[in-house]
């Protein structure tokens, strides 16, 4: 907390958000009278940093279904990810995982000892128990997505991941993230919270996943490369380097930055769809659940843009304060549109005119602005409010000082 406040020192609205977050009474999720459920949410908390909170804030009707959807895909991913399991053993599990989830008592102990989420599969009977207790409509949706994702994984595991064209890139992201969007949308519509249109607009659901995945892939360049994973499409990096790993060479720094802009520009292509999708979501808890990862993605993309650090440092992240602030602000489409406009402007003003994608990124930012002004006129007032917060920071105003004092008080109380 102390370091988070320090990092946000010049962003008083973030300090404020951090303090509020710290002071807010934590919603207690008490599952003690339901041992099985307690175990499920224990696994959720163990396997996901970012999703655990937003899933638990969902409406009761959807909460368990989405928690199980997440855990099942995480289980599948844990088998796929484990390089200590040979292909012959692995492939049948990936291809039949959608059937396995109907087998009461099934567990899996073949994961290597270092596999991070190994315990989830060891106790997978709990997950299956929970899954079988879900409404049949949810079971069908989850099984269908699991089947498609499992087959996709089996395909990439045998053929290898060769992301050559941008179409390959879209396809890969569809399997690992777009499908999740599709499944969630179907659940939203199935439970009646959202209109049937949400499930029907598969293109928009897919874009929701693609925007997140592409942002992560762009950020994780170095980490993925170290583990010999290559997700940046050759069609893009091939314009700037002979080999993907050449981008890290200091003498290629200019080309690397251009390549990065190209990746950012490609990811930004999905924002239009993201806004259109979020506009459809009416249930407040579903809205936050969908919106939070998206605003984090645009904030991350802004941090990545023109940032050479992604070629030299692993694990770069937005400030904790920024995250908390974004989570607090993402509760309706006007506010979310304002956040997108704010970051789009930052992205544009950071661009280097000599970069080959300067114009493309400018046009993309203009388009975001134009769409938001046209469809979410309320975002203009929200933007002014957000900017007032940001401005107060850059001028190092009194608010900052006050917030620091407040932060100090909180610190004292946490340590006392």
């Amino acid at each position, binding site marked *: 907390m102390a370091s988070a406040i320090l990092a946000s020192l010049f962003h008083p609205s973030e300090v404020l958000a951090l303090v509020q977050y710290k002071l807010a009474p934590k919603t207690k999720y008490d599952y003690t009278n339901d041992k099985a459920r307690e175990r499920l949410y224990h696994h959720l908390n163990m396997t996901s940093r970012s999703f655990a909170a937003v899933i638990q804030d969902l409406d009761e009707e959807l909460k368990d279904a989405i928690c199980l959807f997440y855990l099942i895909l995480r289980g599948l991913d844990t088998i796929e990810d484990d390089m200590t399991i040979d292909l012959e053993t692995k492939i049948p599990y990936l291809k039949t995982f959608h059937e396995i989830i109907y087998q009461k008592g099934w567990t899996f102990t073949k994961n290597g000892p270092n596999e991070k989420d190994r315990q989830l599969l060891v106790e997978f009977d709990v997950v299956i128990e929970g899954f079988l207790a879900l409404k049949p409509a949810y079971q069908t949706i989850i099984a269908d997505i699991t089947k498609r994702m499992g087959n996709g994984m089996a395909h990439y595991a045998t053929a290898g991941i060769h992301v050559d064209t941008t179409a390959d890139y879209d396809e890969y992201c569809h399997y690992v993230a777009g499908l999740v969007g599709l499944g969630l949308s179907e659940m939203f519509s199935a439970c009646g919270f959202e209109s049937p249109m949400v499930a029907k607009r598969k293109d928009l659901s897919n874009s929701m996943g693609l925007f997140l995945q592409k942002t992560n892939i762009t950020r994780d360049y170095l980490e993925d490369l170290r583990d010999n994973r290559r997700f940046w499409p050759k069609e893009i990096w091939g314009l700037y380097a002979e080999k993907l790993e050449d981008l890290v060479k200091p003498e290629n720094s200019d080309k690397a930055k251009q390549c990065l802009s190209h990746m950012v520009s490609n990811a930004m292509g999905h924002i239009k769809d993201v806004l259109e999708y979020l506009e459809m979501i009416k249930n407040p808890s579903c809205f936050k659940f969908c919106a939070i990862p998206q605003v984090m993605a645009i904030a991350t993309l802004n941090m990545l843009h023109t940032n050479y650090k992604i070629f030299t440092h692993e694990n770069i992240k937005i400030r904790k304060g920024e995250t908390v602030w974004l989570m607090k602000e993402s509760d309706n489409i006007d506010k979310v549109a304002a956040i997108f406009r704010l970051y789009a402007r930052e992205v544009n003003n950071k661009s280097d005119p000599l970069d080959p994608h300067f*114009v493309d990124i400018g046009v993309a930012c*203009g388009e975001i602005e134009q769409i938001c002004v*046209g469809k979410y006129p309320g975002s203009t007032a929200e933007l002014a409010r957000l900017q007032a917060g940001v401005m107060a920071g850059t001028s190092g105003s009194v608010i900052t000082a006050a917030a620091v004092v407040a932060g100090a008080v909180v610190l004292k109380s946490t340590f006392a």
Partner: protein
Amino acid sequence: MSTTKCLVTGGNGFLGRWIVEDLIKRTDYHITILDIFIPTNAAPTDRITYIAGDITDAPAVRNALKGHHICMHVASPPHHFPAEKFKKINIEGTQNVIDGCLQEGVRRLIYTSSASVLQDGGPLENADETLPYPKTFIETYSETKAIAETMILKANNNSTLLTCSLRPSGIFGPGDTQATPGFMEVLKKGQHRLQIGDNSGLFDWTYVENVAYSHVLAAEKLVAGSGVPGQAFFITNGAPVPFWNHPRALYAEKGVVAPRIIIINFQIALIIGFLSEMFSLLKKMMGKEAKEGFTRVRVRYISYNRYFNINKARTLLGYEPVVVYKEGVKKTMAHFMALEELEAKKKA
């Protein structure tokens, strides 16, 4: 089979030349260029005829229109002309064209208006054709364009003359005499480091070939029952960008980028604008010549949002930009850089 004959007023101007070229490329019309200035080396072809003539000379206009089926009224004075000229050319000239068309039985009249007919000094966001003209105009140019456009649209009549009006925003391209040379001038003076405001205002630029193309489409769609007659249409590239991006994109084509941008706050710029207006007023009062430079109107013009909705042109004219904005920037600068090179060679 008789060929369609099309007269283009101002056909020798920046936009006019592009329209003529596009007509040659996309239609089989015979084209007559009516312009106050016909270059001495202009050679008529089997499809192009030249007539030198003044748009404010009614008999000359009528004479030129004889035997034509279509008229594209493109002629308009450049921005730096005095107010009386705007009135004379834009209003009287347009009346002459309408009268000439009616007298000579020309059936289709397409007017080149301007997106600035909506300019009231405030922001324009996703502005479309349903918006009324402003009550007060901030400059004579846009006021006279609006008056002329009203005359044109009023003249629309199913049994005599079909008319429509095109409203391009921020035309630029090879041969451009205003926007791009203006930015090059800024660069020469080293003022490309300055930025007014936070660059949040969007501006709609339109590559000239797209504007020309919209004229060709209008000529073809201007038939009874198409929904086009009597209508105005905004024409843009459909890709508004933050205002300061455009000059930076132009300079970048030359490999020039400001090492550091100096940002002048919008409010402060308004104060500077006011002072400079007062200064030129003072100079005028003392009987000295004063150029209107940095004014508040200009500060607002480049800081506010100014972009349009082109759905009407898309649906009724079937318009879609043929050259995307990025490509337009490249083509424009290729032209201007070649010109500069030529000039440098001449000097040397």
